[in-house]
């Protein structure tokens, strides 16, 4: 690209055009991938709250089993493929286990007798809250 001073024109070569086009394409791609990409609206973090303690966060990227002690005993929580659930709790009714997998940001369930809750969080959740039975 040469700039001939004085005559107000820029001389573009063929490669300049290609680079310019690539730059425009890169911008468009970044725009869509950053605004509407996979990460947005998907859960990536599990928040575990035990009684009145401050909550602890776990990444959903690594499959693992978490064991916690609550008021009446232990609760076992499974993280698998970006989802989480209670797989055991020392309560009799097992509402938390019946709830099944949490998959969406904002989704939450708790073992109330054991005072342990699990909630999913995403990078940019679509909703400020979820309404409905829980």
């Amino acid at each position: 690209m040469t700039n001939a001073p004085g005559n107000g024109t820029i001389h573009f070569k063929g490669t300049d055009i290609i680079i310019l086009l690539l730059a425009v394409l890169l911008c468009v791609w970044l725009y869509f991938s950053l605004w509407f990409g996979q990460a947005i609206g998907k859960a990536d973090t599990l928040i575990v709250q035990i009684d009145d303690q401050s909550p602890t966060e776990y990444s959903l990227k690594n499959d693992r089993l978490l064991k916690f002690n609550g008021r009446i005993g232990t609760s076992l929580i499974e993280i698998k493929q970006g989802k989480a659930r209670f797989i055991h709790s020392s309560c009799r009714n097992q509402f938390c286990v019946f709830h099944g997998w949490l998959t969406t940001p904002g989704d939450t369930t708790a073992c109330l007798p054991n005072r342990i809750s699990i909630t999913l969080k995403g990078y940019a959740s679509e909703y400020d809250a979820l309404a409905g039975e829980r």
Partner: protein
Amino acid sequence: MPIKILPARLLFVGLLTLLISCQKTPVAQVYQQQLFAFGTLIDISIVTKNSQQAQDAISEISSEFDRLHTQWHPWQGGELALVNQQLPALKAIAISNELAELIKQSQTLSQQSEGLFDPAIGKLIRLWQFDQLEKDNFQFHLPSPKAIQSIVDSKPEMANLKLFKNAANRSFLQSDNPSVILDFGAFAKGVAIEKMLTILKAHHIDNALINAGGDLKVTGSKNQHPWRIGIKNPQNAQDPSQPAILAAIQLNSGEALFTSGDYERFFIANGRHYHHIIDPRNGYPGQGVRAVTILDTDAGRADAAATAIFLAGPKKAMNIARKMGVTHLLLIDSDNHIYLSPAMAKRLELLTENSTSIFSTHD
């Protein structure tokens, strides 16, 4: 290949603008806290620059929820429990003005709902043990049809209660039916949330959301955007391959969203599914409806109406809604067909492909 400088400069500025638009918008300063209170899980979101202000409000809310939970629990040592012990004697009982107000409001709503919402059926709720869900030391047993029928036949209803004040402005309550026991399980949460909003106001918090176990009310907005709520899809509870969210809705300041559903709190006995919404007309869990969601500016009314309309079913839903003064309702029947009131249809963004119909205003 010559190009004029001006268009080249414009192109450059254009590209820069595109890059800048990739920047994230500023993150809302939302202070969030979860409480175990009122027999459920409560999520509080407060938009503020001052986290101390949020913490002070939340700690007051937390103790207020605890106080109301004790006072309004049907049989655990608070004021209502004491009242319930004395009611069957049919004598006048001195009660707090706060409890008198709760009873008065529910009498009105009960009458409007044609008795579908009726906190006087505490005996039935106790028989079904749905007042003990949060307790750990009990096992569900199916009540005997005979025991259910004998309570239903004794016709306990809010109209059996008389409220009056003495010369010193003290409130009194008297029952004329020994079968009346009060249980505000379908109302207390709504009334409590209204009280929490008053506490927020006293702390000069204008933008907040209180979500008590999936029933919620908002005030203000979240950084100039309305609060955006996802309504859970009941089908997802049994079949995780179904979409998790049924519909999206944006709430204006002062609006509450309350749901009565059969899909989370239930027992299974002899292969049958027994949920917690008991029909005062026959004493059994309501049939034919999976969930009802009500949008209203009064959380207490929304709470009571969700229960009443769940029991009313699609045929009577609009009629009962109108009598209770409710305009926005969503009902999902047991075949997963969606019914919307015209006002609700305008507000909701449905995200599933369930068959849907809109109630006519003449229903």
